[in-house]
């Protein structure tokens, strides 16, 4: 079996109830497992943006998936990208025992090395925060697990932004408007 590629799917939709369900069933039907998911308002008012990551065997599978998502009435546009097209980030929180943290000699070194922050400290526990790529948040997790242990851990879904200048959707909507005026079709795959 060929190696799977990691894709980030970005979906712009109207802010209506049930869009998430419509999108996830399209993944399910094609046996694609969602690795992470985040939803937020986009730069365009009233339009929500879903960032979904998944592995796929072929680009063709991803292309078909995105077309099916795009076809839903409430969806304005769906795209897929590989990591090189994107600037992306995840955030992770780690809860550890305060006593054990204090007992280590290298708290400062640890925080500096991983560029982590302390969010909260109490007698019994301390919460650290780290942002970064998956490998980076995982590296801190591994180091903490091996040394002082992690009581609780949570990692967010990926948020991603394309390397292009503005929201691609703004471009698309503008081009659509122009195309409607001139009655010619633009290439919406770009």
């Amino acid at each position: 079996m060929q190696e799977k590629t990691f894709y980030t799917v970005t979906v712009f939709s109207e802010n209506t109830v049930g869009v998430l369900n419509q999108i996830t069933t399209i993944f399910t039907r094609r046996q694609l497992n969602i690795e992470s998911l985040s939803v937020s308002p986009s730069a365009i008012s009233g339009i929500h943006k879903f960032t979904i990551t998944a592995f796929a065997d072929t680009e063709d599978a991803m292309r078909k998936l995105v077309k099916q998502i795009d076809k839903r009435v409430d969806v304005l546009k769906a795209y897929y990208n590989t990591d090189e097209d994107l600037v992306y980030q995840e955030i992770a929180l780690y809860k550890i025992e305060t006593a054990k943290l204090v007992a280590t000699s290298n708290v400062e070194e640890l925080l500096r090395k991983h560029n982590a922050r302390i969010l909260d400290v109490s007698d019994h526990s301390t919460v650290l925060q780290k942002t970064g790529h998956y490998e980076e948040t995982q590296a801190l997790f591994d180091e903490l697990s091996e040394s002082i242990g992690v009581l609780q851990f949570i990692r967010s879904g990926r948020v991603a932004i394309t390397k292009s200048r503005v929201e691609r959707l703004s471009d698309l909507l503008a081009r659509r408007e122009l195309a409607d005026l001139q009655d010619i079709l633009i290439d919406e795959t770009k």
Partner: protein
Amino acid sequence: MKEVKTKTAVITGSEALIRSLISEGVDTLFGYPGGAIMPVFDSMYDYKDKMKHILVRHEQGAIHAAQGYARVSKKVGVALVTSGPGATNAITGITDAMMDSTPLVVISGQVNSTLLGTDAFQEADVIGVSQPVTKWAYQIRRPEDIAWAVSRAFYIASSGRPGPVILDIAKDAQMLSCEYQYDKTTSLRSYRPAPTPRLEQIEAAAELINQAKKPFALVGQGVILGNAEKELIAFLEKAQIPFGWTILGLSAVPSDHPLNRGMLGMHGNVGPNIKTNECDVLIAIGMRFDDRVTGDLNTYAKQAKVIHFDIDRAEIDKNVKTTVSVLGDVKRTLPLVTERLNENSHTDWVDEFKEYEKKEYDCIIKNELYSETGPIKMGEVVNKVSEATENKAICVTDVGQNQMMGTRYFKFTESRSIVTSGGLGTMGFALPAGIGAKYGAPERTVCIFVGDGGLQMTIQELGTIMEYDIPVKIILLNNNYLGMVRQWQELFYKERYSETFMQNPDFIKIADAYGIEARKVVNREDLDNAIAEMFEYEGAYLLEVEVETKGMVYPMVPAGGSVSNIILGNGYSL
């Protein structure tokens, strides 16, 4: 964007619904009442003169009837059902409409908005259940949302690639009052129903066709849905391109058109299947390369350059990789390509099909239609019924052997004359769909072909036919088997006829109990006379024909096989 402004009035949600439907031109709808939809049925009582409601006997029947209505009339089919089981009973029909791109608006009652999510009596998560099988599904919880939601529903169902929409309306939204004003929807920001044609695609397609020595067109339902029958004929005739049609593309062109080479697919004609793998340019028009058409994709039209005309971007490159895709409404794209085509003739190429047509006639058709001895054959009945209507009737079929015989041997002179469950293959479709077709085209004759299995799946709709005196002609091809499954058991399961024999009731007595005129034919010499009697009789008529018990539909492309390896059966080979 906003066109017809109606005056603002304060009315109940249920009345707002009825008035919205009337604003969309709905004069006929199919449904079944129940607790959570009662306010709507009550409001409908005041509008009886404007809108006719047909009370079916099961919600599945309401949806199939709405499908039959929509398919023949170019209008949106409308069905009205209650919450819970009413809505879940509708799901089969809704899925069928989704697969076959049939425009429907289904309205389901829902429990009070305050009870949503509490597992209330007759509550079902209708939106959750229906989202994967609808073009759009929306729950209405406030009366003021009814008008705009109905307006959107009709716009979405009927535009672009059509499909079913479900509106799930909480009972309190039906009962509470609101200000009412109806504005027709003409666009939605997030929805692009029909891509605008692109010049480079048009030119590339025309160039490929102009260079083709052996072009072959595949005609699908998109042509009919796009009302582009004339544009299609102009396109085909200008370059003299032979074509085959899909099961849902039937009747887009009159059957006797000289370029028509027959039906594609598993039980289609030999020529169009073989020639798919010999043409140099394959031109798919408003069709979606279903597996029943293509067989094994790895051996499908590999030699050909493929042009795909479609309104739905998601169909492009889904199953068959295209050389040139022509996105857009075929009503617009076909003429743009046609004007760039050179007049041409492909006489030698068209003649190549004829060798296969002769072979198919000699080995299969002659025997199926014109046998003089032995039991009556299914194809023979279909052919005689079609001829008795001068090929002018609407042919409604169920699913299975009756469907394949119906679509192979019925002939068409007019578009929108085939009503069949192509994608989902829903047994029990024919009887209620035939009812809807008769309401959709009351001036036309509606012939319903159904097997003994399928008839019994929705046989209760005989009650609807009785109550409304609907003059449909039901032709029951009775072989006492689930014939298509039996055929596969004979061919692929060593004749182990597991659960395909059926002990049947006396269908004539059943018809009689419903007050429907009926006659059973066993002997060939009675058939012509019985068919004539059926058409002479003014009302509904059930003609039961005892056909050969182990009839086979040939030719056949075995599932997953190559279209080149089509089997003739009965010991014949190509």
